[in-house]
């Protein structure tokens, strides 16, 4: 707003932050001249969209009907890749693992991040310091997180089991016992709830204090105020965080790949750590099965699309938008 102070002379109008969309008639010709510049400004995006988004989407669909190893040219194989996919135990297990992880990870992240954000809100002036501390893990590269938790989760020597043994719990072999590999990965993922927490914290700041006060005067209990005032007011942020976290967790790769894949061919944890994108990555870039990998990619795309649409559909019942009339 200090900006407006620098305006020269003309004070006829106040800063128009949200001008009406319709141009005034006398400006029609200016409008037309202006719009010749639109393609210039949008060109980078349009080119990028065609070359790196739309083009590859189509190419990926086409490739999924071929057998292609990059060296020789693609060969049309019809639905072979999809038939293979339907009977590929590894791929289906990877999908199962990924869905299992997502179903565990997303609700936990949402609940933990919201809890932390509400906790921050209580800390008043100190919230900044604690926000920093809670957010710090989110700055760690996933590979480093993988290395770190490979050691922290170690069944014999790991810090986590050492901490559990203090309270008398005999911790499992998080990194080798197939039953505990995925819960271990979920535990690891909760270390970096920082981003979601920051989103919720910002949303909580936007909840009008008067609403809370009014509810309290009306005798609403803490839970009632949370349920009927806070939650509806931040439902937009909740939906956004749910959708984004779901999409991201269905594509989990770096941490898991670091911990369980790489030079050594067989994964230490057996099939329990086989995640979908890891499998896709290996099919494409290790075995050069580009056609099959494209089919795998499209299956994942459809799964993500369906889940996102279901989430958006369900959300219509819960989400409150301020602008809504």
């Amino acid at each position, binding site marked *: 707003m200090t900006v407006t102070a620098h305006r020269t002379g003309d004070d006829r109008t106040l800063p128009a932050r949200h001008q009406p969309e319709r141009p005034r008639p006398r400006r029609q010709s200016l409008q037309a001249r202006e719009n010749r510049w639109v393609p210039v400004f949008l060109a980078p995006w349009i080119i990028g969209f065609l070359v*790196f988004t739309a083009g590859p989407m189509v190419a990926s669909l086409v490739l999924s009907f071929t057998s292609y190893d990059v060296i020789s040219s693609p060969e049309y194989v019809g639905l072979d890749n999809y038939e293979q996919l339907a009977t590929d135990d590894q791929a289906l297990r990877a999908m199962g693992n990924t869905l299992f992880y997502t179903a565990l990870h997303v609700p936990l992240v949402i609940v933990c991040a919201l809890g932390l954000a509400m906790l921050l809100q209580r800390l008043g002036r100190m919230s900044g310091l604690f926000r920093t501390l809670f957010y710090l893990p989110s700055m760690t590269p*996933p590979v480093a997180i993988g290395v770190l938790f490979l050691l922290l989760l170690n069944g014999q020597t790991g810090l986590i089991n050492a901490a559990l043994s203090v309270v008398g719990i005999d911790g499992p072999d998080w990194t080798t016992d197939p039953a505990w590999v995925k819960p271990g990965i979920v535990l690891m993922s909760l270390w970096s709830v920082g981003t979601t927490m920051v989103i919720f914290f910002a949303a909580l700041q936007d909840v009008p204090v008067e609403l809370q006060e009014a509810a309290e005067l009306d005798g609403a209990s803490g839970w009632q105020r949370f349920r009927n005032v806070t939650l509806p007011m931040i439902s937009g942020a909740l939906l956004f965080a749910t959708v984004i976290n779901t999409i991201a967790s269905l594509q989990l790769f770096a941490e898991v790949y670091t911990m369980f894949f790489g030079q050594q061919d067989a994964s230490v944890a057996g099939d329990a750590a086989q995640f979908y994108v890891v499998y896709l990555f290996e099919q494409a870039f290790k075995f050069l099965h580009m056609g099959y990998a494209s089919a795998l990619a499209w299956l994942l795309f459809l799964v993500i699309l369906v889940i996102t649409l279901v989430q958006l559909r369900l959300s219509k019942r819960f989400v409150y938008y301020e602008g809504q009339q």
Partner: protein
Amino acid sequence: MSSTSTQLPAAVTAGDVFGGSTASERKDPGGRRSRGVRRALVWLTAGAIAFVMTYPFLWLVSASLKPQSQVFDNRLWPRDVQPGNYAEVWREAPILRWLMNSVTVGLAAATAVTLSSAFIAFGFAYFRFRGRNALFGLVLATMMLPGVVTMVPTYLVWNELGLATTQVPLWGMNLFGSAIYIFLLRQFFLNLPRELFEAARVDGVGYLGLFWRIAVPLSKPALIITFILELRASWTDLVRPLIYLQDSALFTLPRGLKVVLDQFGQGGEMKWTVVLAASVISTVPMIIAFFLGQRYFVQGIATTGRKG
């Protein structure tokens, strides 16, 4: 302003959601003792969580300074401090080279995406043309698109261009803007007073000038946010360096760290000290960057989340 806005709700909602106040407590809402207890509980919880969140870092740094035989003793303070681990990483792997590669790629990626996204965002913010909302909707829709779907064909595009084994694919796409930043910067541009641009037009400034000489200088915070968020994204990325970089001299830090882990960690020479020291080296720069630009990180994430 910000301190009052954070404190007021805190006072109003003091001690309920977590504790769940009982009826007897509510009869005595001003009771100083119960309020004090609740306050203490809040601080205790916050302290405990902060401890859990930061302890792994301390563990990592501590373990990276221990001799191999003590790495797993879980002592916070090493019995024998062995800073030589860092010298050993130096000898075993071109870690400085990787660090420089990460810095170069990160700067290229962040600069490219900031400039291109701002340029595109200005197009969406300043001009009013038919189909603008539909097109902008398409931009936002690409945000939801899983990157994995285009992983294979994108590789083929770079392969076709003869760049598949260079560092270019790690930042080249950034020249064409990125949906989330276009959204963020457009929001910012929309809040600039339009008369400013109209006055400049009257003074004969061209449209490129409007962007470069007015919109950009006035949007520094938003540009810094974009830059810093992309710097982190680039710095932490593993999948693209894995796909594209084969030559160890070109590796970025995460890619190099993975190689170090495979060679010296599990199934390798079991020299965890080297792996841990390399992990610290790849983590510390981002932590420093975070402390320097904290305000922008937090603001940026909050803004993207507000779109709801």
